[in-house]
């Protein structure tokens, strides 16, 4: 049973890790965009 828990936690860790990377990219881009808009004014 331990193996099952291990496998499923690894699966969700990878998926959430990837989603977190995506989220980080998004916030970085948003920040950049805000900064650029600020510059534009």
């Amino acid at each position, binding site marked *: *049973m331990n*193996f*099952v828990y*291990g*496998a*499923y936690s*690894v*699966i969700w860790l*990878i*998926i959430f890790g*990837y*989603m977190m990377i*995506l989220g980080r*990219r*998004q916030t970085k*881009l948003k920040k*950049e*965009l805000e900064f*650029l808009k600020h*510059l*534009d004014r």
Partner: protein
Amino acid sequence: MSANLEREKGALSSSEPVAEKGILVPKILFGATVISILASIYLIFIYSSIEKTMGVVQKIFYYHVASAWCTFLAFFVTFIFSILFLAKRKRIFDTYAYVSAEIGVVFTTIVLTTGPIWAKSSWNTWWAWEPRLTTTLILWFIYMAYIMIRQMDGVWDKKARLASVFGIIGFIDVPIVFFAIRWWQSKFHPIVFGNGPSQKGGGIEPDMLVALLVSITALTLLYSYLLQKGVTLENMRIKVTQYKEKLREDLEN
């Protein structure tokens, strides 16, 4: 660099309203993904019966197979969009190919981590040079190389061209790799280590089949949600770069 970005500046203003309208699709996809994943977890852990010979460990199988399927789907999508890009030279095709390859690598990583866990519990070794596992490992390396091409410096259309070419080569290589490895194994290690992860064959119970199909659907939905999200992100990145370029030009004048 600037010459290339200038060419597509027309798209900058027109893409704004599309983003407003397309906000519904990711919401629906996200909801469907969450619901189907919860359903698949219920089906795997509570509904489906426990396999007789392998016991509870067999429950790894559902997500292992489902992510293997998603891996194949993702790389197939990359292959198709690579061909489309080379034929039509539209940037959106390239974006899809890239995002799909990246998600494919994520799913391959899942297959590569659950595979050894499965192997440890049923064959008592972490790794067997079994054709499917080995092919998956080589697949992972090929698409890591694909991502490395994307990380190159240079103009986007050059990178896109080279990556598309490699996406086609890599995908065509996969069946040959699988064939070669299977042949190699069958000739020199005639003993097969029990049943391979996806070698279930005929003896699958109907309730297990239901759980398997639901997990495949769930992960496919997750794949399409991630694909959609990644493409939106990439488009945003392109827009930011264009914006930067425009500002830089304004400053110069």
